[in-house]
């Protein structure tokens, strides 16, 4: 099998009628990399994938495959495999025939075909249903067949468009493991579109977070989670969502009304704030500790506890209409308790209220 291909998008735009769906996007996908395009529905992530696949024309800019302009290449030259959200299995062909069809059309030898098919049927646990038609398959089997049809081409670029969104939650964990296994085995470049942040975090070497036709941030999962570039990324990643409080800078402190959220801003960031400037204070639910209330603490009342088994979600009201979500493993807290709220200082995130940029 060949190595993965390098994909570059240079100032790529896509207009649909008069709407700009993709706005001058630059993106580099390294050979053999697993890149996830993550974003809410309608952010343009699927359109980006389809432009790379050549299914949508590019309104401006260039898509380069190993430095060559992809628009002039035939589908055979591009050598792409793609898995669609609806699987797009040929309904008139069995699982084996679905796997075999493209190879057969391109006159790959029978022996090679049979060998590859058998290997894939085995890897993806599809042997029992090899002669079934798509309508006779379960959701998970359809998904694996679609995956297999992509794998059998042994292409240098593998595109996946929300391949797990139509299967049961219970099966997704297994399917994720399979996709990870496939990527480890082959050295293909993979571009994977999803709206599910857990999937993105689990799979991506790097994640490109998109919103509104623009890439908001491209980085490793760790960077994205802990150092989001702007408010959108901070809010989109993480479940439960990050706690955000609009607060005012006051003499190197950050205050929300009478509450002092940060007592030494310089410790957190080198950014020069103006006095009385309003900024967003952000803290993820797991970076808050609840303790016995002391004078120096922000103090609140526990209003709700939801037990998720592995952890608890605790809602703490620290002022009227101002609550914090806290994730904790401590099971001693009760609803009604008065608690001290301690923020994990090096995890505090600050954002500009105007443009949403991270100020840390």
């Amino acid at each position: 099998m060949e190595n993965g291909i390098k994909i570059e998008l240079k100032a790529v735009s896509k207009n649909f009628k008069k709407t700009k769906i993709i706005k001058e996007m630059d993106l580099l996908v390294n050979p053999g990399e697993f890149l996830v395009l993550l974003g809410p529905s309608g952010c343009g992530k699927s359109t980006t994938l389809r432009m790379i696949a050549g299914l949508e024309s590019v309104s401006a800019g260039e898509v380069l495959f190993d430095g060559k302009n992809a628009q002039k290449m035939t589908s055979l030259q591009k050598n792409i495999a793609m898995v669609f959200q609806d699987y797009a299995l040929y309904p008139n062909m069995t699982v084996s025939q679905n796997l075999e069809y493209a190879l057969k059309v391109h006159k790959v030898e029978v022996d090679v075909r049979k060998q590859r098919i058998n290997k894939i049927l085995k890897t993806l646990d599809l042997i029992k249903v090899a002669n079934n038609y798509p309508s006779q398959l379960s959701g998970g089997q359809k998904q694996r067949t679609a995956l297999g049809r992509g794998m059998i081409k042994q292409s240098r670029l593998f595109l996946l468009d929300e391949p797990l969104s139509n299967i049961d939650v219970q099966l997704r964990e297994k399917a994720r493991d399979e996709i990870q296994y496939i990527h480890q085995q082959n050295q293909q470049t993979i571009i994977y579109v999803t709206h599910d942040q857990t999937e993105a975090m689990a799979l991506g070497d790097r994640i490109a977070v998109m919103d509104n036709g623009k890439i908001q941030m491209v980085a490793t999962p760790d960077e994205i989670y802990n150092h989001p570039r702007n408010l959108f990324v901070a809010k989109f990643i993480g479940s439960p969502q990050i706690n955000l409080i609009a607060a005012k800078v006051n003499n190197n402190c950050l205050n929300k009304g009478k509450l002092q959220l940060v007592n030494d801003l310089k410790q957190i960031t080198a950014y020069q704030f103006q006095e009385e400037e309003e900024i967003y204070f952000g803290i993820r639910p797991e970076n808050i500790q609840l303790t016995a209330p002391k004078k120096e603490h922000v103090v609140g009342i526990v209003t709700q506890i939801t037990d998720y088994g592995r952890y608890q979600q605790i809602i703490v009201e620290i002022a009227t209409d101002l609550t914090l979500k806290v994730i904790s493993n401590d099971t001693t807290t009760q609803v009604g308790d008065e608690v001290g709220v301690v923020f994990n200082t090096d995890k505090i995130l600050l954002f500009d209220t105007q443009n949403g940029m991270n100020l840390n």
Partner: protein
Amino acid sequence: MSKSKTLGWHLFLIVICLIAVLPVVFMLSNSFKTLRESYHSILQLIPLHPTLSNYKTLMQEVNLFGLIWNTFFMATLVTFGKIFSSMLAASAFQYYDFRWKKTLYFIFVATIFVPFTTIMIPNYLVIAKLNLLNTVVGVVLPQLCDATGIMLFTKALEKIPASLLEVAAIDGIPRWRIFVNLLIPMLRPNIISIGAMFFINSWNEYVWPTLILKDKNSFTLPLALQNYISSEGGTNFPLAMALSSIMIVVPLVIYILFQRFILNSISSTGLK
């Protein structure tokens, strides 16, 4: 919903049934009556003295197998021609962009609303100028294009997910293979049900062949039937009913063979 209160529905359905089914029963019933009995008790459902004499007379008087063959042959030609032209035109409308596409589609569908009666004469004149009167080609040619078929196949193609064709495109499958290996099998239920419709329509076609065909040897069943019912022909009702009964055999056999597809009909696409 519940099984109660179905009496009203039953009554309603019985009335509908009388209007729809009774004439067929009369037809069958009278085909087994003698001319005399049919005169006296034409609405008698069960013949008092059932006889096969009408069928025997038909066997002697007309070339029954020739008639059936002529009708079948022309209906088959028309069916395949229409299916082929409709599928190709529908593919063009669904998958290609060209100028005036929407306008052209609009005009095509408009032809559905032009009564055949009104374009019969222009068609006749064209066929006459082409020296095709009294030929099979003359009967078949003007029927080869059908806007209903184009419309139904375009609808059916719309329901095939775009992703299926995109996968094929990414895999570099040539277009003719997409048509033969994917579109035709996926549209099979539509082809069968629309095909059955075309066949039946052509089988029952009466007015147009009357104009084109003069030679008794190339007559079709509806033309032969006319001999027994038109003002020019006789008024031997039981004989006409016997020929009518023969005439519905082929369509009914087709219906029974393809009922699964026909009952699922027009709206299904073969995708689950």
